[in-house]
């Protein structure tokens, strides 16, 4: 079976934080301890929603050394494919669910002399775990957290009360914005940037850091892309000799799995590179949404990341 190892868990708390975000606490069904993880790790949550099984990644936000439970925070996306709505509407205390072992694609570089964290909206969640990890190690960090409004500022009160000197909050509706150039200018040598938030914010931070001469290796980012709905299309899997219809609201990867083909994956969000698949033949257009492949690879028509990317056209044959 592809993906990280699975853990059967029970939902022990469902805590609405605000209009959009709800926190879920998972404890192992079998009792005992969960694996420790490192700040920035995510888990892939399996959601049995009628005939559809969704597998969505969520950053773990609990203390990485707390093995009694994992917590995640889910932002409701009314326009999405339904994973977050399922979590918000269907999941109740006492439910049993299956989650994956933690996987970290956004870990701290512990060689850094200072960790500069930049969060946008629900992108705050991996930092909650990283901050707990760094506090234990007496790490040097500061957080710049941009949210839409006070009402939607998840964990602002917790962060500002526990770390009043290290946490800086910016509210869009009060016209507050991170003064990025000033923030990046004058950071001590050995500072690493971590950014998690919407794509625009990630590109803004990466672009500014590059222009100011920051090494690429000192800028870390994570953006989970949810697979977007799109026109149905047909895919032929050459190795398994199957033809699969990809529905409007399912991803190519999900359709491949539904057909009983065990395809590799890890993050399911276009970031890790695990599901990279070779294209054997095609007639049509790719809709690449990942940020794993390089631009020239996107243009080549030779590779696709089936977790988030789609296809429009007559023929698509994959080496799977």
């Amino acid at each position, binding site marked *: 079976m592809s993906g990280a190892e699975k853990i059967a868990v029970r939902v022990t708390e469902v805590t609405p934080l605000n209009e959009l975000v709800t926190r879920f606490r998972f404890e192992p069904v079998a009792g005992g301890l969960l694996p420790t993880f490192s700040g920035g790790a995510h888990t892939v949550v399996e959601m049995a929603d009628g005939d559809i099984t969704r597998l969505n990644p969520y950053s773990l936000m609990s203390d990485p050394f707390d093995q009694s439970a994992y917590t995640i925070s889910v932002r409701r996306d009314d326009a999405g494919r339904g994973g977050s709505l399922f979590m918000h509407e269907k999941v109740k205390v006492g439910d049993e669910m299956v989650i994956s072992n933690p996987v970290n694609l956004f870990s701290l570089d512990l060689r850094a002399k200072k960790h500069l964290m930049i969060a946008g909206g629900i992108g705050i969640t991996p930092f909650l775990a990283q901050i707990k990890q760094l506090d234990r190690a007496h790490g040097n960090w500061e957080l710049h957290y941009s949210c839409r409004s006070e009402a939607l500022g998840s964990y602002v009160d917790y962060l500002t009360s526990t770390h009043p000197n290290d946490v800086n909050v910016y509210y869009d509706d009060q016209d507050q914005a991170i003064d990025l150039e000033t923030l990046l200018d004058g950071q*001590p*040598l*050995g*500072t690493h940037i971590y950014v998690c938030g919407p794509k625009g914010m990630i590109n803004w931070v990466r672009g500014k850091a590059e222009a100011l001469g*920051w*090494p690429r290796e000192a800028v870390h980012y994570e953006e989970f892309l949810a697979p977007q709905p799109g026109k149905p299309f047909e895919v032929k899997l050459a190795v398994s000799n199957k033809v699969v219809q990809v529905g409007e609201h399912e991803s190519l990867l999900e359709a491949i799995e539904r057909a009983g083909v065990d395809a590799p994956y890890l993050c399911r969000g276009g970031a890790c590179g695990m599901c990279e698949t070779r294209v054997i033949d095609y007639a049509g257009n790719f809709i690449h949404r990942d940020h794993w492949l390089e631009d020239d690879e996107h243009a080549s028509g030779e590779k696709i990341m089936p977790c988030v990317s789609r296809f429009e056209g007559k023929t698509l044959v994959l080496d799977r």
Partner: protein
Amino acid sequence: MSKFEFPPSIKSRPVYGTLEARPGKAHLMIADAAGAEAILDIATPELMARSHIIYIPRGATHGEALRGLTPAQYYEGPSYAASVTRIQRVLQDAHMGLQVYLTGTEGLMGQAQNEAMQAGIPHTAIQTEHRGSVARRMQCVHCKGITEDVETDPFVCSHCGLNLFVRDHYSRRLAAYQGVCIDAEDPGNVPQAKGIYE
């Protein structure tokens, strides 16, 4: 002066590039001997206005040419050992965005890279360009002593006197290649010393 092409080797062996001016508010350039020529090649008035050059001539006569570039700061040191405290101080006060350029002998580049890495710059973000002598800084794996400017293979450890074979295994932490006793099995049976790349 033409650049020496090091023969392809194992992954451990450092590979050097060609310096290029990169965006950044501050530039630290450290060179010895013929490395000065690599700085002269990329120098522009705009770049020099933001550059701090630390130069160890080792008998070369490029000092006046470098000073003539009128960098923001210029320091000429009699040896690496005499210059390293200054390098450390510059790195300690530096900010992210600093660009580091190292050029000259492998020993100079390796040791200065080590200082920059310890200050928090990823080694892959440090530019290097080899110029001048192809001599190596070697560590004897037996007594751990360092012998500078080794030009022949094998060579005699300047600390313990063993006959050492020059390997391509390199340590970024030590900024040195590994020297291993060549006549351990049959003491005294030492091949004729020749140039490392002959």
